[in-house]
């Protein structure tokens, strides 16, 4: 398969269609689930899809070591290349690496202002014309409402779409993880700043994706997509 076809036939086209054309610049999207379900895999798959399209991505990470994140990208790329029998994989790989920057922050020391300042420095001084920012490992239980609003303001200012992962801790939610509308309790107060919210649910041999907030539109619920736990690809 050549690259153009791979982009066209990516399951992420279905994903984008389900949320009315994708996240879009200036918007905040969140993937939420308990630990170990596959948020990072989904985020890296979304980022890799952007990279295939030649769109630069900044991957902000609060927890993992840089080499772990790079391994994530390598694994997802390898799986896609294998799965779709991608032609000229080595050249494409070299090409997409140029469009990816990983920025790692240690949570204790990293205030949101400082993180945003550094990301902005990467875009302006580093002349890195990112369109998407992936934020993995941000702790929503620590953050305040103001923090997410700052991200949203920042996204609008620089015309970025920002994807977050939110780890839900079962132990902390006595009345269950989700409210009646399927929104994770921990995110309910932040909902005003979130444009797209998707929850991940492990069921049997795969992981389901459920849209619980879709811009202003009524959410479609379960997506006709799932996450394969073996390859960690969206299929």
């Amino acid at each position, binding site marked *: 398969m050549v690259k153009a076809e791979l982009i066209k036939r990516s399951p992420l086209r279905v994903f984008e269609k389900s949320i009315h054309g994708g996240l879009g610049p200036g918007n905040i999207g969140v993937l939420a689930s308990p630990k170990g379900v596959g948020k990072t895999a989904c985020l890296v798959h979304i980022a890799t899809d952007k990279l295939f399209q030649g769109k630069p991505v900044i991957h902000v990470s609060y927890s993992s070591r840089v080499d772990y994140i*790079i391994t994530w990208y390598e694994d997802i790329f390898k799986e896609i290349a294998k799965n779709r029998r991608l032609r000229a994989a080595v050249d494409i790989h070299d090409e997409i690496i*140029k469009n990816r920057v990983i*920025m*790692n922050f240690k949570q204790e020391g*990293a205030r949101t202002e400082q993180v945003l300042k550094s990301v902005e*420095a*990467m875009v302006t001084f*580093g002349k*890195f014309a990112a369109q998407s920012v992936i934020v993995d490992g941000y702790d929503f239980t620590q953050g305040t409402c103001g923090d997410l609003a700052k991200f949203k303001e920042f996204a609008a200012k620089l015309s970025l779409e920002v994807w977050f992962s939110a780890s839900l801790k079962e132990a902390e939610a006595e009345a269950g993880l989700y409210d009646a509308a399927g929104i994770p309790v921990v995110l309910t107060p932040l909902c005003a700043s979130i444009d797209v919210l998707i929850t991940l649910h492990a069921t049997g041999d795969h992981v389901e994706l459920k849209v619980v907030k879709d811009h202003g539109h009524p959410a479609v619920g379960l997506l006709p997509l799932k996450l394969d736990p073996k390859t960690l690809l969206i299929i």
Partner: protein
Amino acid sequence: MSTNNAKMRNIGISAHIDSGKTTLTERILFYCKKIHRTHEVKGKDGVGATMDHMELERERGITITSAATYVEWEGCSINIIDTPGHVDFTIEVERSLRVLDGAVLVLCAVGGVQSQTITVDRQLKRYNVPRIAFINKCDRIGANPLKVRDQLEDKLRHNAVLMQIPIGLEDKFRGVVDLVTQKAIYFDGRDGENLRVEEIPAELADEARVRREALLDAASMFSDELTEALLEDRATEALIHAALRKGTIARKLTPVFLGSAYKNKGVQPLLDGVVRYLPSPADVENTALSLETEGAEVKLTADDAAPAVLLAFKLEDGPYGQLSYIRIYQGSLKKGDEITNTRSRQKVKIGRLVRMHADSMEDIAFAGAGDIVALFGIDCASGDTFAAPGLAVAMTSIYVPEPVISLAIRPVDNKALDRMAKALNRFTKEDPTFRTFVDPESHETIIQGMGELHLEVYVERMKREYDAEVETGKPQVAYREAISQAVEFDYTHKKQTGGAGQYGRVIGTIEPLAEGTYEFVNEVKGGRIPREFILACDKGFRAAVRKGDLIGFPITGVRVRLSDGASHDVDSSDHAFQAAAIGAFRQAYRKAKPQILEPIMKVSVEGPSEFAGNIFGTINQRRGIIVSSVEDGSFSRVDAEVPLSEMFGYSMVLRSLTQGKAEFTMEFLKYGRVPAAVAEALIAEHQGRNRDAGAK
């Protein structure tokens, strides 16, 4: 001197730049009574640390050449190799590591694990060198040795075990609590030479107990005896030391010591640690390669009575001739012994055997197995193996990277010409990453090395040590050319100009080769090209790849498949087929979409976070790719891949942009494709040069 090698240690001191390695070495020499006074590296007294014996090093405050020195501590003899910290000189580090049995990894209590620490640690791993860590500069503002210990675990994957906890930090750093003896140690006297041992301060008692538990847990993993003793509450210090030693030598545990060499604190316990936990030559297994049965490994025993095997790992030009630093892997050496250089097969007689202390030396009559000493007046290259007559072995070759940068040099006058030749001869012997040759076209002398600073240092040494003043050209990057697609060739070389003619025809393909520089595959069947000419074809192709058409640099990554051809009974010859091969390659090369490759460096810039933006900018301006940036509090590290050709003068730019607060290291990563615009400029430049040469 003791000849029992259980009481011998060969250690290196490895660290990131400015971690205080040289100061630490200096203090060790002082406490071992090798010197009578201590000096600072960039000393106000203008004397400089004793290990930095080259004038140039004193001026720059960095250590360039490893000097070996010998000390005694508590009845144990220790050979210390002071290794250079700058990445441009890593060949020195690697060569030193080869002969070490153990190492002290020095870390800064403020900076922690830095980019160069990672590099040297990887090198230590490559040579299986067990290590203990010393967290230095505990007196500095921002010192946090506990954080540094965590980094040893997170970033370097060490099973790092604190042997001590600090008593106070920063300007209140007074001493350490030894977790094995459970005593506080203070360092009194002008130079901290008097150890005062007291009870643990009450406020540290709880922490000491917790940390001691962790230490015992880690140690007991390596000794059932200790585990049992702990259960029965009868663990002795000796049992704990033995278990820690076992873990350290197996490279599964890293004891961590604390101190401040500058403030004369913590060095003596570190020396105890060297003796207690690092291996003796007998604890380490070394092998040599047999030269008789190809590549077979020969096990060496650190036994004085066995036939001698030694490696010359470093040469130095002294006022009385060449001084060769050697490590004795097996057997022993006496004055008057005869040994053979197994490379040149030359027999030499040992005239003078000396033990080195930085700038002074002591004559000795005997050196035992495992020892590091120096020989006088023996001609050899660094990396040569010597053995007792009749024994044909070589120590495994030391990994030598290819040089990535070259510089044309011109002596200012005839006197300088002679001296320059002498200096170059010496440097190339000393340092395998430093090469020199005369360009057949420009007739200029070219020197090659691992980086701008590497070559700069040699140019300065030429001036200072050999009084050879030279002018230098612009540094030139070692480009390569490569083909990007397979192409068939069919080429006939024919000449009929009276007398014997020339005839040769070659048919086949050239194709890109992912790994390696050149490969020749002979697929000719039925003697279409007579066997005696196949070698000539190979030779012709080899000659052709030496210089590409695009910009005149060597071609790399080509496989030639020779499948068919034709010959003539009378007119075919070696020469004709060589010419046919060269012609065929030139013709096919242009069709194979040749590209220019350039060395890409792995660059790591570290500095305060406030300068992160400036650093991103400098990388971007240099066609670099930022791979990642890590922010840890107020400290940032940016890892990037940048073409070497763009890195000239980077240290100056970085210094001025960040008020000298950021530093960078770089090392060769890979060859990468040059972007089209840059390639065009290079080709135009090359053509211009050719035209000029033609016009002359």
